[in-house]
């Protein structure tokens, strides 16, 4: 560990890939949060009809998820996309963007690493993308 004396120099510049990742992550998060709030506002204000009526929620949200799905006929896996016009289901768009925005950030790093000959980190990015995609695919969770 090397600690230099206090300096008035500008902050050290971080690696290019780190700055690119930060920039994309920043935008992905903003878009996700805006979508989250807008869709929720439409949902609770009644602008968009809900798949599960809000009045019914206190009866069903106390059950385990399997029972909840049985009682409400709510979708699993990617079936929610077909019901995206429903207020409660539309909330999953913002949630999906937040849970998926790292994919774009990681994908944007691969050409950068390859150009520099850093194949190990290009492979690490590709592997992380594969893991998130596997989780998102719904195969492991038994979704459709």
């Amino acid at each position, binding site marked *: *560990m090397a600690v*230099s004396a206090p*300096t008035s120099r500008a902050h050290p510049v971080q690696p290019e890939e780190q700055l690119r*990742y930060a920039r994309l992550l920043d935008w992905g998060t903003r878009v996700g949060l805006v979508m989250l709030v807008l869709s929720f506002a439409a949902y609770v204000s*009644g602008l968009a009809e809900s798949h599960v009526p809000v009045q019914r*929620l206190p*009866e069903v949200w106390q059950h385990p998820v399997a029972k909840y799905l049985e009682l409400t006929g709510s979708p*699993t896996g990617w079936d929610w996309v077909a019901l995206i016009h429903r207020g409660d289901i539309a909330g999953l768009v913002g949630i999906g963007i937040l849970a998926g925005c790292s994919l774009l950030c990681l994908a944007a790093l691969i050409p950068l690493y390859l150009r520099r000959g850093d194949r190990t*980190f290009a492979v690490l990015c590709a592997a992380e993308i594969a893991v998130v995609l596997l989780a998102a695919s719904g195969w492991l969770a038994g979704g459709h």
Partner: protein
Amino acid sequence: MRAWVPVACGGALMCLAGPADAAGAVAGGPPWWVWPLALFVACFVMGIVAVPAGIGGGTLFVPIVGSFFPFHLDFVRGAGLLVALASALSAGPMLLRGGLGSLRLALPLALLASASSIVGALVGLAMPANVVQILLGALVLGIVVLMFVSKKSEFPQVERPDRLAQALALHGVFVDGASGRTVHWQVHRTVPGLLVFLGIGVLAGMFGIGAGWANVPALNLLMGAPVKVAAGTSGVVLSLVDSSAAWVYINRGAVLPMVAVPSVVGMMLGARIGARLLNVLKGSVVRRLVIGVLLFAGARALLKGLGVWP
């Protein structure tokens, strides 16, 4: 005062539905909108105290909401993951730009932890609720013990990096804001670190609980990263790990926007206030308060799981 404007807006958002659906109450219970509103307020308070207490909001969320709100633990864990994810995503860009979060250090650790978090999420959703409650209670009480005994090393001495750390070039540089010094850091014990993160991923997925409480000691005390780099990199790791686990919960239908959105918004607004109050509130007092609340929530989860305090 400007900081309170978004809070008022958030509360107003929750109140939008109130008058329209006041009839929507379970027989004898409060109307439906009371719970998300209470959740928003609770998460806002948790967000405020989480920053000065030096603990992730996600760590507070699952035990407290799981113990004192009517939602099933499946939905609480799904929302907990999103709370931790949104917080990590929001902080990530700033940490990476300032060098406090290292993408190079985060990537190998996050890869293993992401994969194991999927396993944790699948196992957690398959387990009976009472077993999850018991394990959650034990984990939360374990976190309390960790908060009591864990020491931090601001700038650990790493004489030389191990071979894997050298091969992966796991080192970096940042300017310490407190002292103005430029700090060059490197890490060691990379293989044990990777194994520890494999276990951390399982816990993160299984309980939907932010894993900063485990990430920071592993990066700082085990691998030798400076404490600020450990905290920053922990956020970057969490943003990837919680993404994987969150997808499992989404695919299983265990993410209810009515539970997740007020939690995420409340926690993020609270954290902004908490960051502003960092110099006003006495950190040690808030930390003791949080430990007390966690102790109570952990005991409650344990007793709830055992059927002693349903």
